[in-house]
């Protein structure tokens, strides 16, 4: 090694707080090279000389001015209060915004359901419990979403994003064609009547439950899968599970006037549709992305 290389090594060691003499090559070279020994002395002395500079306190006047400005800025004013509130609300650790969003979403969805069925058929306690549970579930999913965004946890974000998109699509479909209306229509329609007669009422709700969960979930997973790679079956079905949780109170609220067979058929169908839809939508998008790459 040349003297220049050795001196670079010694400098690197000094800058990184290590002992240059601990490097075997440097040690061997220093034993025979007076110039490098002298260079090491100078480098160490220069680095240590920087430590000799004294620490000075901040002049009192400057300190006073800075703290005064900090006090003035923190004094409550309309604008400051508003921006403080905004910062507080948007802090991802604060659950207030997800809870508010959960309440809002539940209220909108309950209103949508009320347009198509009489919610007064459900006892007040059941209605309150379902509403609270639904709000809590939505709040959790919104919290998961904001946490995934802030911490760059893509898996959490995917679960939340997929299930929220899917539940949104489910409600759009419900507005235009509520599931009980579709079952009734198919039971009276000439072409589908024989098939519907063969299926029991529970079976019909199972089949429609599959379709009404599979379609939104497949679309939701397809939309959200673009950013993520791998494990389509696992990720898709997990997202389907989260969607099913959001869907369950909607099914419960719509099922109140029906028999147990219908309720079980619808729940079973929705669960199957959610899991298949999640995995299918994710897999289609995943495959398309892989082929285009």
């Amino acid at each position, binding site marked *: 090694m040349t003297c220049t290389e050795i001196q*670079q090594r010694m*400098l*690197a060691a*000094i*800058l990184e*707080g290590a002992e240059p003499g601990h490097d075997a090559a440097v040690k061997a070279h220093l034993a025979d090279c007076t110039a490098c020994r002298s*260079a090491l*002395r*100078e*480098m160490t*002395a*220069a*680095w*240590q*000389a*920087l*430590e*000799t*500079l*004294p*620490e*000075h*306190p*901040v*002049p009192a006047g*400057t*300190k006073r*001015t*800075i*703290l005064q*400005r*900090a*006090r003035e*800025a*923190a004094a*409550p004013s309309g604008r*400051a209060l508003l*921006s*403080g509130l*905004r*910062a*507080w609300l948007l*802090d991802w650790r604060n659950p207030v915004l997800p809870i508010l969003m959960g309440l809002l979403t539940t209220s909108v969805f309950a209103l949508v359901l009320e347009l198509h069925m009489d919610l007064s058929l459900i006892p007040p306690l059941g209605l309150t419990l379902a509403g609270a549970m639904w709000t809590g579930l939505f709040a959790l999913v919104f919290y998961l979403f904001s946490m995934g965004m*802030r911490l760059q946890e893509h898996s959490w974000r995917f679960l939340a994003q997929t299930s929220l998109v899917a539940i949104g699509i489910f409600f759009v479909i419900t507005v235009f064609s509520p599931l009980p209306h579709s079952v009734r229509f198919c039971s009276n329609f000439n072409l589908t009547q024989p098939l519907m007669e063969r299926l029991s009422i529970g079976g019909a709700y199972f089949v429609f439950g599959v379709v009404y969960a599979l379609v939104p979930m497949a679309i939701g997973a397809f939309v959200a899968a673009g950013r993520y790679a791998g494990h389509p079956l696992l990720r898709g079905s997990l997202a389907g599970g989260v969607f099913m949780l959001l869907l369950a109170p909607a099914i419960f609220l719509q099922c109140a006037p029906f028999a147990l067979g219908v309720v079980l058929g619808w729940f079973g169908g929705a669960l199957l549709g959610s899991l298949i839809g999640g995995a299918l939508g994710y897999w289609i998008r995943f495959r398309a992305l892989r082929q285009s790459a």
Partner: protein
Amino acid sequence: MTDRSDEQLMLDYASGDVQAFEELFRRHGQKLYNLFLRYCGDPHLAEDLLQECFLRVIEARNRYRSENAFGRWLVTIAMNLLRDHHRRISRRGERAGSETEPEALPHHGANPQLHLERQHLHEAVQKALLALPPEQRQVILLSKYYGFSFAEIAAMLNLSPAAAKQKAYRGMITLREKLAHLKEHDT
């Protein structure tokens, strides 16, 4: 005194807790003042820079996110401030801090001879620092006094880690040349 982290203190100040800011200033004010002082060698300029730096912190309090370590965030603001300062100077065609003579700061000591020797050493070291180009000076100061890694320094100065290291090497070679006359026992 408080056990709250710097990041928590900054968030608390953003929510209106002035004592949190006072604690942050107690923890970081002097260190930053000395960084500016060593960088420019001019106590009045160092005061102005310190004031400007904390004013920027105050203004940005609602945009601060706790994922950014406060110390690094503060020093990044300080480095941006130094960059702006250099731009202003070069626009006005003034002499940069690196060309000015370091100002003597008050010292207290019982032994006048020792005091003079120390004064002489400090002036030599400060003069050697001021002879470095701005970025080399910044890298050396951040490495020496803040103990930041080259990757951290590179991120603060918008450089690659290799470039930051290179600047530190060059700066150290210049310092070595400038301070070669100092005997070991002086330091």
